[in-house]
């Protein structure tokens, strides 16, 4: 018990200390978080009318980010799996950082759920026993279950590992390894269920196909590692902690393959839908070319296509993917491309046209942008703290008894 309080104290003491750069970064995020809190208050006193959503397009920026971030959370498995299944040296050293990323991403997802809901004050209605939990019928019920489970699994695995490093105890592999394996499979489940959430609605032909889960997984395993590569490069440049080249190179390979698969799946969908060009392809057609003169999403779609294809090509060029000065460029491009394709590009056309043929457009408001930005800021705030603490422990700068 005394060890535990010391751990908490040491951890907090360490993450609160930092240079000017650190405080500036956290302060900037803090400003965005305060802005987010204000618009969240506004949204819950005025109602969703302050957003651009309507009864026709009733899922927008929030839902899009939610879907995308579930993918980022699942993407952490691209570190954990090679680390434990292939005993990859470089990955094993940083596996815990992947778990920290997963925790931050799931927290962001939870916040986007709150942002999305019309009545967040009634969330307790979903809790079993005091509320009603429509399980196993409701896909959203499944989603809440797998996301909560994933958060808990990663928190246990990550912090138990750090705790052992801190105290110097050996890891109890008897229960730690099974938990790690469960977490790996669980990572696939979170994104699969999120895909099912929208692909099980025949009312929305744009989403109603069985390719959705694999496409989600492929894009997630491209976008997630992109973010991780960026984080690793920042860590290498700004801390004493050294992430091995081999880890970054393996992640680059994973990104390239998954990006290629994702592009292939997108192309397949386009061919299947547009060859027959039924009424059910209207959503995709709206996204690609516009419908009845409404073309809001067309530049977004083509922007995403260009970003994804060109980043794929860049990843294939050895002199770029092995040059860690240039590597961030395709990473940012792929991340942005997938954010568009899987977020706005997937969610919004599901509602255009509506099931009775109405075509309207969606304009996210300032409130929505600020709230979205604020939640991302909060996520990065948490991520910075978690990564800093984890690195401190891995480096041995936080150690039991060392503070005395």
């Amino acid at each position, binding site marked *: 018990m005394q060890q535990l309080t010391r751990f908490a104290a040491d951890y907090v003491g360490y993450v609160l200390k930092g240079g000017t750069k650190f405080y500036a970064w956290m302060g900037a995020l803090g400003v965005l978080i305060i802005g987010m809190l204000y618009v969240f208050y506004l949204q819950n006193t*005025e*109602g*969703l*009318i302050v*957003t651009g*959503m*309507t*009864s*026709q397009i*009733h*899922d927008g920026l929030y839902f899009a980010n939610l879907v995308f971030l579930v993918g980022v959370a699942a993407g952490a498995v691209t570190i954990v799996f090679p680390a434990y299944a292939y005993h990859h040296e470089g990955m094993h050293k940083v596996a815990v950082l992947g778990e920290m990323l997963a925790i931050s991403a799931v927290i962001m997802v939870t916040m986007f759920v709150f942002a*999305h*809901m*019309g*009545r*967040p*004050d*009634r*969330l307790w*209605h*979903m809790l079993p026993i005091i*509320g*009603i*939990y*429509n399980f196993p*019928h*409701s*896909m*959203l*019920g499944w989603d*809440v279950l797998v996301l909560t489970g994933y958060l808990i699994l990663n928190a246990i695995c990550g912090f138990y590992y750090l705790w052992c490093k801190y105290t110097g105890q050996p890891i109890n592999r008897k229960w730690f390894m099974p938990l790690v394996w469960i977490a790996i499979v669980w990572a696939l489940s979170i994104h699969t269920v999120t895909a099912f*959430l*929208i692909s*099980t*609605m*025949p*009312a*929305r032909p744009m989403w109603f196909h069985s390719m959705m889960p694999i496409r989600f997984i492929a894009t997630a395993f491209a976008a997630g590692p992109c973010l991780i590569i960026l984080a690793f490069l920042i860590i290498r440049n700004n801390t004493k902690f050294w992430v091995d080249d081999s880890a970054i190179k393996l992640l680059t390979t994973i990104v390239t393959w998954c990006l290629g698969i994702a592009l292939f799946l997108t192309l397949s969908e386009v061919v299947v839908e547009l060859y027959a060009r039924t*009424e059910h392809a209207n959503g995709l057609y709206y996204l690609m070319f516009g419908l009845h003169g409404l073309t809001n999403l067309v530049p977004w779609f083509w922007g995403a296509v260009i970003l994804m294809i060109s980043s794929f090509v860049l990843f294939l060029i050895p002199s770029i993917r092995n040059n860690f000065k240039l590597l961030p460029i395709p990473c940012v491009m792929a991340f942005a491309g997938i954010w568009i394709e899987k977020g706005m590009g997937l969610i919004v056309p*599901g509602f255009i046209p*509506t*099931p*009775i*043929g*109405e075509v309207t457009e969606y304009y996210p408001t300032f409130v929505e942008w600020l709230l979205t930005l604020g939640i991302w800021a909060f996520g990065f705030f948490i991520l910075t703290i978690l990564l800093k603490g984890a690195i401190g422990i891995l480096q041995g700068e936080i150690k039991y008894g060392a503070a005395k």
Partner: protein
Amino acid sequence: MTIKKNIPAVPVEQRASECLAQPASADPSKAALKTTRRDFLKASGMLSMSSLMGTAALMTQSDEAKAAIEWAEHFQKNYRLMTDAEKAEARARLERRYSQEYGKQVTVDTTGPQPGVLMGYALNIRKCIGCRRCVHACVAENNQSRGTKPGEKIEWIQVLRMERGKFEQGKMDHGYPEGLGIQVGGNAYTPAGQVLEGQYHYNPEAVPEQDATYMPIACMQCEKPPCVKVCPVRTTYREADGPVVIDYNWCIGCRMCMGACPYWARRINLASPVLPKEEMNPVTHYLGNRPRMRGVVEKCHWCLQRTRHDRYPACVEVCPVGARKFGNLLDPESEVSKILERKNVFRLKAELNTFPKFFYFYD
């Protein structure tokens, strides 16, 4: 329940006064409860946290009563899990709040499904003239939000206008590709007989228009409703007598049901509904037309406040051409049963296996 008579449509002012005089419930035992509500509530006040606060709210005569009632509403259970006593209490709480808010005696009916009744609806699309009186009657009857901003105006019935389309001789030889054998004919995109490519923002000087037909759509009250399956908190469900209803106090506003509905029948209250006092219909049902709140989903419920008391839904009553028919599917003598027996009927998007109890038919 057998619906025999079609009550003629009356002007709005007249109808409002008639509604006021109506008892809140047809069930005498429930009416009796009203007089002794206060004593009754004292006795059952210990039932739950919500009971405690609800009672407190009812006892207070202060201005804070409204806030206290709303506070108590936060903690009430899902409607279906409430005991009869809790239902009575929730009802009393609502009646009190609404009466205060709208400055008139508002009743909140809690009459349940009647035995031997399965509601059904049939619409003669041959007869519909697209006048949209049903839409307006529905808004007036069911206390929908009247606002002028796009997100504040809610209508449950959509009347789609469909063009008759024209086939032209001039396009006979044209199409795509030109010359080498046409694969897409020049007349391919004429919208004749096309369902679901309609427009509801039509605004002609007079209806019916020569070049159009009309197709009204609202909630189909499916027997296998996809919206009910996806609801994470089971706030929306199918009542025994057929309609799919929503417990507005339990809805978390996640909008999954809106995505799942193939008929786009559901609406979200983006803001607190705009409902002027003088236009508010004070005869309400708990699962039906009682005023909704910000952030919850609503939709057509076949006017439970009327149909559970042997009256027609407002849209049926107001339809000037008699295109709309409503009745008990279990009663072979009802109009709807007769239509199913004798006419050519179809269900919209039958391929989705939702099994609507709303049928379209031709003469």
